[in-house]
């Protein structure tokens, strides 16, 4: 595993330790929620065997236990020093790919997957990759076209489609 070390002039946004604590806390809350829901479903024995909530309930308890162990261990650790989880620059780069991806999902619903993927690829190549406009547009177009031919035409795998595909009668 590669863990980034703090570089000079690139401030850390969050420490390894705080992210770990928060994650374990979230999982613990999830485990509690699941345990409660399964308890509601039924964790007892019936004439036909264990009820539906039995198995997941006990797994939730194990999960909660492991989280509590992790949290306690983290709290008891003497050294307050911790490696950086992510630095500002790193986080910016992650967001550069995450935000377009996040926008891509609703776009597939309105524009159809193929048009949205054209927009994502061309836009990403041009704005983030700083590649030439015609290279970006052509790559996006060719990739979407190939995907369309492979999935829609050759293998009959149906993807969400939008106004443009309807124009061509698909």
């Amino acid at each position: 595993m590669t863990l980034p070390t703090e570089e000079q002039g690139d401030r850390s946004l969050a420490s390894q330790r705080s992210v770990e604590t928060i994650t374990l806390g979230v999982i613990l809350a999830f485990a509690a929620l699941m345990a409660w829901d399964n308890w509601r479903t039924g964790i007892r024995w019936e004439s036909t065997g264990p009820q539906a909530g039995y198995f997941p309930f006990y797994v939730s308890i194990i999960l909660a236990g492991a989280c509590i162990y992790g949290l306690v261990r983290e709290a008891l650790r003497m050294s307050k020093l911790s490696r950086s989880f992510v630095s500002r620059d790193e986080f910016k780069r992650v967001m550069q790919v995450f935000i377009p991806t996040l926008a891509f999902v609703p776009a597939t619903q309105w524009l159809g997957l193929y048009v949205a993927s054209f927009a994502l690829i061309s836009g990403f190549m041009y704005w983030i990759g700083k590649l030439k406009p015609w290279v970006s547009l052509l790559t996006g177009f060719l990739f979407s076209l190939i995907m369309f031919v492979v999935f829609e035409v050759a293998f009959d795998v149906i993807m969400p489609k939008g106004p443009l595909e309807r124009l061509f009668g698909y």
Partner: protein
Amino acid sequence: MEALGLLFLGFKVLFTWKTLALMMVGLTLGIFVGVLPGLGGPNGVAILLPLTFTMDPTSAIVMLSCIYWGALFGGAITSILFNIPGEAWSVATTFDGYPMAQKGQAAEALTAAFTSSFIGSLVAVILITFLAPGIASFALRFGPPEFFAVYFLTFCSFVGLGREDKHKTIISMALGLILAGIGMDTVSGQLRMTFGNAELLRGVNFLVAVIGLFGISEILLTMEEQLALKGHAARISMKVVWKVWKDLPKYWVTLLRSSVIGCWLGITPGGAIAASFMGYNLAKRFSRDPNSFGTGRIEGVFAPETAAHASGTSALLPMLALGIPGSGTAAILLGGLMVWGLNPGPLLFVEHKEFVWGLIASMYLGNVVGLVMVLTTVPFFAAVLRVPFAAIAPMIVVSCAIGAFAIQNAMFDIWLMLGFGVIGYVFKKIGIPMAPLTLALVLGSRAEDAFRLSMIGAEGDLRVFWSNSLVGTITTLGIILLFWPLIGATITKTLKVLRLKH
């Protein structure tokens, strides 16, 4: 030699133009997936799985397993030419492979890597051919308690033998088991953990989870690390190939040792990653000149590659014979089998003989065709890596979305995939392993069913897991493995004390 006859039957199923063409397509796609950073064996297979939904099961599994072979071969290309392991199990290959490329011996290193992958896989496939039918027919006698005991053993060995913090492995596994339980309960038909959400009725599909956990998270990580690809060009000539092959017999001990390690760690869920490191370290320890390792020794390429591929291939043995995958990718192939209504496990060998032997035969053939293909097309695939990452990243995102959507035609699954991508990113950075989650997600409902059926049979008496010598041995072994770190530490301590007394 019943196996040989059945294998012949398998080859007969395989030799049609259509299957052979699919094989080539699968291998090409697989090498692509293996070469591209941010894609690897498990999620490559998961993303491409939808392509096979409209095929008949035999063609589909042949293509999928060829994608898998291709990905295994492809990982070595990036390790050697670019010093970037395409897969975690190619990390050890970079130790000597990249120095060889720096010395201008890239072609030799690549030939060595491909050849040893071929040998490792071949040994494992031979093992599968002769062992799998036996294990399957033995397992036909298994009832629910025995099956649960085997699942229990699998889970325990992940916890006990994994290198990660134990509580993190348990967290990952328990999360997988809970996620597997969401939706309709298979025994009673009751809904659980859906919170009234209609989208959750279907449950969390594990392929969607895999695409997010491995594909999307890998893109985020690669972006963060700002990967700069600087590599060596390579072209493999026949002369180099002959030269390396002529020297092969000299390294038979290394090859054999690594094959054995690989097969062992593949069948027990130790995994290809552990196998590759162990293969490398043992080759170094037994070498007459251990210090020269790391400077570009061809043995340093042979050892990890053979072990990794022997392990990657033999992971399919428990998957086919018992329905328990030995690796992440095997888990996904298992998911694929279930999509076509084939239930992996001992009955598969009885009910779908043609399918099983077609698959095993395709392993032989795919391996040979794959070796020829990679040897001839290396320059082309190395060029793929020169494509800027800004073009590759969004293409992988789109491929992941297509893969996630196609599994159940659900928009919700694309959102789910994105969520798992974020989870994968965070987990990877704080050291929560993801393989246990994948395994638990795919085995969860089977393990639960086995547990509940045995409980019903025994009227809630846990002693059913020690009711006969077979199930008792497996369960006890599981518990020993679970507490192995404690037991191992105690043994070392006692030994130390004894030694001090003397």
